[in-house]
């Protein structure tokens, strides 16, 4: 049987994406657009981690915004209060979020589906309260301002273009590493676990270890995204890391499609850009933007319902049908 092998090597896909990322500031160095694209890049990192955990391994997390928060506050505190370099702060934020992922993996070893969703949702609520009440570290409900710009090798990255390139550089590296994991043994084990846990066990897959590692990695990526966000934007408050944001992350992965990486990433880009449509379309009126922002949650909801009814495999499924190939699925 002859099969068309159109499956993109992730390296090709990442190279194309890198060219696109580099082209944006050249074509339009607009500050507002770059700022919006920083949000998009941060969300792409979070979604890469959640696509791994939820989209591939089938373990739902309604608490990913909390991990973003852990990364953001930890990094801001390490740099602002302790005086550590930004790189160390970002790594600490990533590590602490990954540790939080380990904690959340414990219920995942016993719970499935709705029950795991409830447990992770509870985790997000607990962390939300912690962010609000631990005023000495987080600044409480008023938020934490004046967070310094990222700094690499003594150089402060304080220009909009610099921050944009940093966030997207990290995002592309993350995407490449995640795509590689997905097309290797751990990725296949995740898809097996998702399909049937008994079947995975019968293949000798250490499902306990796999869940723990996947939760930790996914949470760590969310923490990394948080660290980038805090220092790019300069201000964080608990509202950014609430349950509603976690729900949005899950919605993005659903719209993007389970078992796909490219789908959720495209969904993350599209849905994050939605409320900032005026950054892309300069002529767009203020009323139209306000309307989009007011209806943001509704549009997400409608997109999710439409996908579940019309294209259960999401954007990723549509890509596969167009024979563009699925990230992580090695065509052998």
């Amino acid at each position, binding site marked *: 049987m002859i099969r068309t092998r159109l499956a993109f090597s992730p390296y090709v896909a990442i190279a194309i994406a890198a060219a696109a990322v580099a082209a944006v500031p050249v074509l339009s160095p607009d500050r507002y657009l770059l700022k919006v694209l920083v949000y998009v890049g941060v969300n792409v990192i979070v979604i890469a981690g959640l696509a791994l955990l939820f989209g591939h391994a089938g373990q739902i997390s309604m608490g990913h915004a909390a991990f973003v928060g852990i990364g953001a506050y930890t990094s801001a505190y390490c740099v602002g209060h302790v005086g550590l370099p930004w790189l160390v702060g970002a790594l600490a934020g990533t590590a602490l979020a990954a540790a939080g992922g380990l904690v959340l993996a414990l219920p995942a070893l016993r719970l499935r589906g709705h029950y795991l969703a409830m447990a992770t949702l509870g985790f997000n609520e607990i962390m939300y309260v912690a962010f609000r009440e631990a005023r000495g570290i987080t600044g409480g409900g008023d938020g934490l301002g004046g967070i310094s710009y990222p700094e690499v090798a003594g150089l402060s990255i304080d220009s909009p273009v610099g921050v944009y390139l940093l966030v997207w550089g990290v995002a592309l590296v993350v995407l490449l590493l995640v795509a590689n994991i997905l097309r290797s043994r*751990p990725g296949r084990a995740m898809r097996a676990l998702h399909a049937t846990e008994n079947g995975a066990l*019968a*293949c000798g897959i250490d499902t306990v270890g796999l869940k723990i590692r996947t939760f930790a990695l996914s949470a760590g990526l969310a923490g990394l995204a948080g660290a980038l966000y805090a220092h790019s934007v300069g201000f964080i408050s608990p509202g950014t890391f609430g349950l509603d944001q976690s729900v949005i992350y899950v919605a993005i992965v659903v719209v993007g499609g389970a078992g796909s990486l490219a789908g959720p990433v495209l969904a993350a880009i599209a849905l994050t850009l939605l409320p900032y449509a005026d950054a892309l379309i300069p002529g767009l009126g203020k009323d139209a933007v306000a309307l989009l922002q007011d209806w943001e949650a509704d549009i997400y909801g409608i997109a999710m319902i439409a996908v579940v009814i019309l294209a259960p495999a999401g954007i990723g499924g549509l890509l596969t049908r167009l024979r563009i190939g699925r990230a992580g699925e090695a065509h052998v």
Partner: protein
Amino acid sequence: MSLLAVRGLTRRFGGLTAVDDVSFDVHEGSIKAVIGPNGAGKSTLFNLITGFDPPDAGSVRFDGREITGQRADRIVRSGLARTFQNTELFEELSALENVRIAADLGVRAGFVRSALRVGLTAGERESVEQARRLLRLAGIAEFAQARASDMPHGTRRLLEIARALATTPRVMLLDEPAAGLNGAETRTLIDALYRIRDAGVTLVVVEHDMGLVMEIAEEILVLDRGAKIAEGPPLLIQKDTAVIEAYLGEECADVGC
């Protein structure tokens, strides 16, 4: 020496003793059948041996090592594979991917090595080759690219056997491999089972198809209401009064048929 030694294995569900003090041995290179009426505890016995369900009492020794109560995946990795009465395939994936996931056991690739893709290609190529070879051994090579959910029932059972084989087991426990198969498919299955046995894999088969059992089994273990009521070669089991009683019911035994 027996490769698999089961001693006093017991499992209770509330007031019901599903498996009641069952002991038996499986010798290397043999085919053993486990039979018994519905609800005799055959599948539960398999679950206890393979770590999918914890026993309340008793022990399982595999190749001289105690494996009682170990996690299922670890038991598989130690060389004791199984299939399920209701197939547990990865439905969305191709037949080849199904088998490859089990063949992955031979690939050393954690998260870090996988993320960086350091030196994985040779091992992966090998596991894909292994998967193709096993599909051929099971006689379903033409379904390699088919989605598991799209495959005919009989070939799905063979696919699960190929997947279990990919873990390179020394003993394989098959739970009703012929259930729902037609005559021709059963014939294919029997041929595959002989090839597998000849490749050096010891087989334990739970099966209702008596034709298959009497043809392939060197020894038969008979369970009734959780307890072992007979064990021996097919010809003796066929004449065993306790077995006839269990299968035909006590009324029949009263009138002496």
